[in-house]
C-alpha cells in the first residue's frame, strides 16, 4: 500500500521533476561550468576575479531593488487590505484590475512610460497647459525606480491580498474585544497574520527588481547600468558567456542571501501571532 502510493506520488510528480531537471538544474550546472572556465573551456578563476570592477553596479542594483520593494510594500499593503474588506464581487473586479496591466507585454508598458515621462512627453505637455515648466523626469534614478514599482507592484499586491482574504475575522474581533484601537488591531493582529504574504511579496518584487535589465535602459537612458544590463551585454554584445555566467552566479548567491535574511522574518511568526 505504502509503496504503491509512493510510486503514484512519483508518477504524479514526474512531469515537474523532468521539467525542473531539464530547465532549472541543467542550466544551473551550465552557469557554474561557464563561471569557472575560460573561452577555451579550461578551468580558471579569472571571471570571478573580474567581478571586482562591477561592485558599484551590484551595489546600485541592490539598492534600487530595496527602494522599489519598500515603495511597493507601502503601496500594496493598504491596497490589499482595502480589497480584502470588500464584498466578493467587488474583490473579483478589483483583483482583475490589478492583474489587467499584466495582460500586456512588460516591454511595451515600459516603452510607453518613456512616452509619458519625456521632457516633451504626455505628462509634461499636460503640465505645460497650466504654465508649469517641464520637469525633467526621464533618464533619472527616480524614473528607473518608478518603472520597477509599476511593473512589479502586482506581485506584491497578490500574495498579500490572498493571505488577507483568508484571514480569520474572529481574530480581529477578539483583538477589538480586548480593547485594541484600530492601529493596535493592524499592528498586533493584521500585520503578523499577513506576514507570510508580505514575505513572499517582498521576495517576488525584490528578486526581479535586482536582476531586471530592460527598465534601466529605457527609463534610465542607459546611464544607470544595473547588473542585469551588464549580464545581457555579455551574452548579446560581447559574446562573453563566461563573464556573464559568473555575474549571474554571484547575483544568484546574493539573492539567496537576501532571501535567507527575509525568511528570518517569517520563520518564527507562528509564535508571534498568539
Amino acid at each position, binding site marked *: 500500500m505504502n509503496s504503491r502510493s509512493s510510486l503514484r506520488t512519483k508518477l504524479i510528480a514526474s512531469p515537474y521533476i523532468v521539467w525542473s531537471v531539464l530547465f532549472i538544474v541543467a542550466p544551473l550546472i551550465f552557469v557554474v561550468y561557464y563561471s569557472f572556465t575560460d573561452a577555451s573551456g579550461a578551468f580558471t578563476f579569472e571571471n570571478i576575479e*573580474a567581478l*571586482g*570592477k*562591477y*561592485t*558599484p*553596479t551590484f*551595489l*546600485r542594483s*541592490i*539598492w534600487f531593488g*530595496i527602494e522599489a520593494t519598500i515603495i511597493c510594500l507601502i503601496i500594496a499593503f493598504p491596497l490589499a487590505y482595502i480589497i480584502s474588506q470588500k464584498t466578493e464581487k467587488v474583490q473579483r473586479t478589483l483583483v482583475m484590475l490589478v492583474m489587467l496591466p499584466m495582460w500586456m507585454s512588460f516591454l511595451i508598458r515600459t*516603452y510607453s512610460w*518613456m*512616452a509619458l515621462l*519625456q*521632457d*516633451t*512627453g504626455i505628462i509634461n505637455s499636460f503640465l505645460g497647459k497650466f504654465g508649469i515648466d517641464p520637469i*525633467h523626469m*526621464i*533618464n533619472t534614478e527616480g524614473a528607473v525606480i518608478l518603472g520597477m514599482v509599476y511593473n512589479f507592484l502586482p506581485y506584491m499586491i497578490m500574495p498579500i491580498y490572498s493571505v488577507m482574504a483568508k484571514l480569520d475575522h474572529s481574530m480581529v474581533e477578539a483583538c477589538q474585544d480586548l480593547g485594541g484601537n484600530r492601529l493596535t488591531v493592524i499592528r498586533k493582529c493584521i500585520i503578523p497574520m499577513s506576514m507570510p504574504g508580505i514575505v513572499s511579496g517582498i521576495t517576488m518584487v525584490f528578486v526581479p527588481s535586482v536582476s531586471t535589465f530592460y527598465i534601466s*535602459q*529605457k527609463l534610465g*537612458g*542607459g*546611464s544607470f*547600468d544595473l547588473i542585469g*544590463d*551588464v549580464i545581457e*551585454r*555579455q*551574452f*548579446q*554584445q*560581447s*559574446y*562573453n558567456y563566461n563573464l556573464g555566467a559568473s555575474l549571474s552566479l554571484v547575483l544568484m548567491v546574493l539573492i539567496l542571501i537576501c532571501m535567507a*535574511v527575509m525568511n*528570518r*522574518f517569517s520563520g*518564527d511568526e507562528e*509564535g*508571534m501571532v498568539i
Partner: protein
Amino acid sequence: MKNRIVSALLALIIAFVPCAFAFAAEQSEIDALKGTTLYVYNWGEYISDGVDDSLNVNAAFEEKYGINVVYETYDNNEVMYSKLKGGGVSYDIVIPSDYMIQRMITEDMLQPLDFSNIPNYKYIPEKYKNLAHDPENIYSVPYTVGMVGLIYNTAMVEEAPTSWTSLWDENYSNSILMFNNPRDAFAIAQSILGMDYNNESPASWRIAAELLKEQKNISPAYVNDEVFLKMEAGEAAFAPYYAGDFLSMQENNPDLAFVYPEEGVNFFVDGACILKGSKNKLAAELYINFLLEPEVALANAEYICYASPHTEVYSNPEYSYYENDILYPADGQFKTQLFLNLKPEILALMSTLWDDVKNHVPSGTGNSALFFGGDDADVADDGEKMTPEAQKYALYIGIFALICIAYIVFRYARKKYRENI
C-alpha cells in the same frame, strides 16, 4: 508613392518570365528545388514586405521558384552571431554588416558563393567590390550601404553643427543621444581623436574610452531604436544615427536636419552571405540573385530607405531618393571608414572599456562628497576602486541591513522576554 506600385507591377511581370537564361545551373536543377525550404535570417524591417502596395519580396520569390521562404529577423550583428554560435539553429542566408562578415569568414562560418548562379552581381558597381572585409568578393554580395551622421533638431540648435564635438557640448546637457553599442560609440570618439576605427593598439582604445567617459558630464541618453521616438518627439537636440533612418525620422518631424561631421564617419556595407551549414545552397544563390533583380532591389531600397549598391536603382530617375545628397553624397567630401573585424583581445578590451564607460559617474553629481568629503573624482576612472556613487549605495544598503538586524534582534529578545513571563 506611385513608383512603388510600378515596381510591384514590374516584379509581377518578372515573376512569370522564365529564367532559363544566364544561370549556370540547369533549369531541371532549379525545378527540382520546388517545395524545398530556404531559411533566411535578416535585420528587422530590412526587406520590402508588401505594405503600402510595395512588393512582397519573399512572396514573389516563393511564387517564382516554388521554394518556401522561412524568414526571421534580428536587431544587431552581435545577436545574430551569438545565436548562430550558440548552435541549434540552421539558416541558409544571413545579411550581416562588413566587420561581422569578416569575423564569420575568419571563423569559417560562411561558404564561398558560386557567382555563376548570381548573374545579377553585374549590377554591383566597382566601388562596392574588393572592400577590405571580403577582399576577393568570395563570400558576400552587398545588399545595402550607408553612413552614420549627426542628426540635429533645428528647433533646438541655432547654428548648424559641423563636428562630432557637438555631442560633448555642455549647452545641450540632458538632450543628447548616443549609440548604446560599443563599436559605434567608440567610432565617434575615435573620429574626434583622429584615430583609425580598426586600430589595434590598446592604449588608443583607452584614450577613446576616456573621451566617452567625459561625455557623461552632459548626461547623454544611450539609445538603440528609441532614437526614432525621441528625435521625432523633439526630445533631444543631437543624435548620431544612420542617414537612411534620418530620412524616415524627418518625415515625422520636419525640424530635423542631418550633417556628415567633418572628422569623418563610419561607412557600412551589409552583405548577403551563405552559411556553412546551408542545406539548400542553390536555392540560397537563387534568392541572392533575386534580391539583385532591378525591380526587387528598387522595392527594397524604397522600403528600407538606406542607400542601394545597385547601379539600376540609384541611376533610376523613378527612385524616390534619386540623387538624394544625404543617401548618395558626392565622394571625397569627408573621410569614411569601414569597420573591420578586431582581434579577440581588442574586442574583449572594447567590451570591458564600454562597461567602464557605462558605469562611470561623472564628478559633481550625487551628494556623496558630503559624506566622504573628497575631491577624489578621479578614482572613478578605474572600476576597481569604489566610486563615490558606489560608496553612497554601500552606505544606504549598510544602514538598511543594520535596521533589519536590529529588528530581528529586537524580536528575538521580545520573544524570549514573553516566554519568561
